[in-house]
């Protein structure tokens, strides 16, 4: 399952409407490590279907969101719970580390 893409218009509704933890990957086309992370996030989205939401924000398409969350390197992954950021992870992460972050926020 591909992680859906969020933008300035869809972000707030997607984050605040979810009762499940939401993992958001801030990325860009010109980021090599982000590309390494893509299949990991797609796997995670499949395995956590119904338990968590995995989404992506392209910072070139949504620079306001990158500024709002103080992104200063990519990939940056933020776990949201009840619409609030509860954990930030910077750099490439293993699937296990991401799953653990989601479990901690559940």
């Amino acid at each position: 399952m591909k992680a859906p893409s969020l933008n300035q218009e869809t972000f707030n509704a997607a984050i605040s409407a979810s009762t499940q933890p939401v993992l958001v990957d801030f990325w860009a086309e010109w980021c090599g490590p982000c590309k390494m992370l893509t299949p990991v996030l797609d796997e995670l989205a499949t395995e956590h279907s119904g338990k968590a939401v995995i989404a992506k924000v392209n910072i070139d398409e949504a620079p306001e969101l990158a500024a709002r969350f103080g992104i200063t390197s990519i990939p940056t992954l933020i776990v949201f719970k009840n619409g609030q950021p509860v954990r930030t992870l910077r750099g490439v992460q293993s699937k296990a580390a991401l799953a653990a972050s989601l479990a901690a926020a559940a």
Partner: protein
Amino acid sequence: MSLTGALAAAILRNQMSTTMNPAPNLAQRPPRSPRARLGGYVILARILDKGRAELAGMAGEYKYNNPIDRHWFRFTGITAAALKAELATGKGDGEILTWVEAQAQPKRAPWEIQQWSAYHNERGPDGDVETLVFFTERVGAVSKTREDIRTWFDCLDLDDHVTFGGKA
């Protein structure tokens, strides 16, 4: 020519030599390496050399706004035509950089420029089979033994070196 006329011509020549940025002759030497940085951006210095050379009719085999250049244009939101028009005014690298920083959309933070440049510095042919074949053939055209050539910048640097008489 009168003494006054000769003096005026000399003054004009002197003014032009100090205000116009001379174009490199890319039939005689390569443009700067894509790795050369200007304002933190890779690729930009090379683009400027090719743009100036093209304006002066001295670009040789080099193409301004080629596929690698377009990565920089996309990242900054500046068009190839707009940059070329700015180069035509004769500005130097520092003045062009000031103009780029004013024009770029979206405005890029230093970390974005640094990370974008680092990505391109290490970027190899990571696309489809056709891209891999193109890369292999391009390297193979200049060397059958240089297995260390892994990135697009490696390939361009090697091609520049060999084109102007270097041994691969």
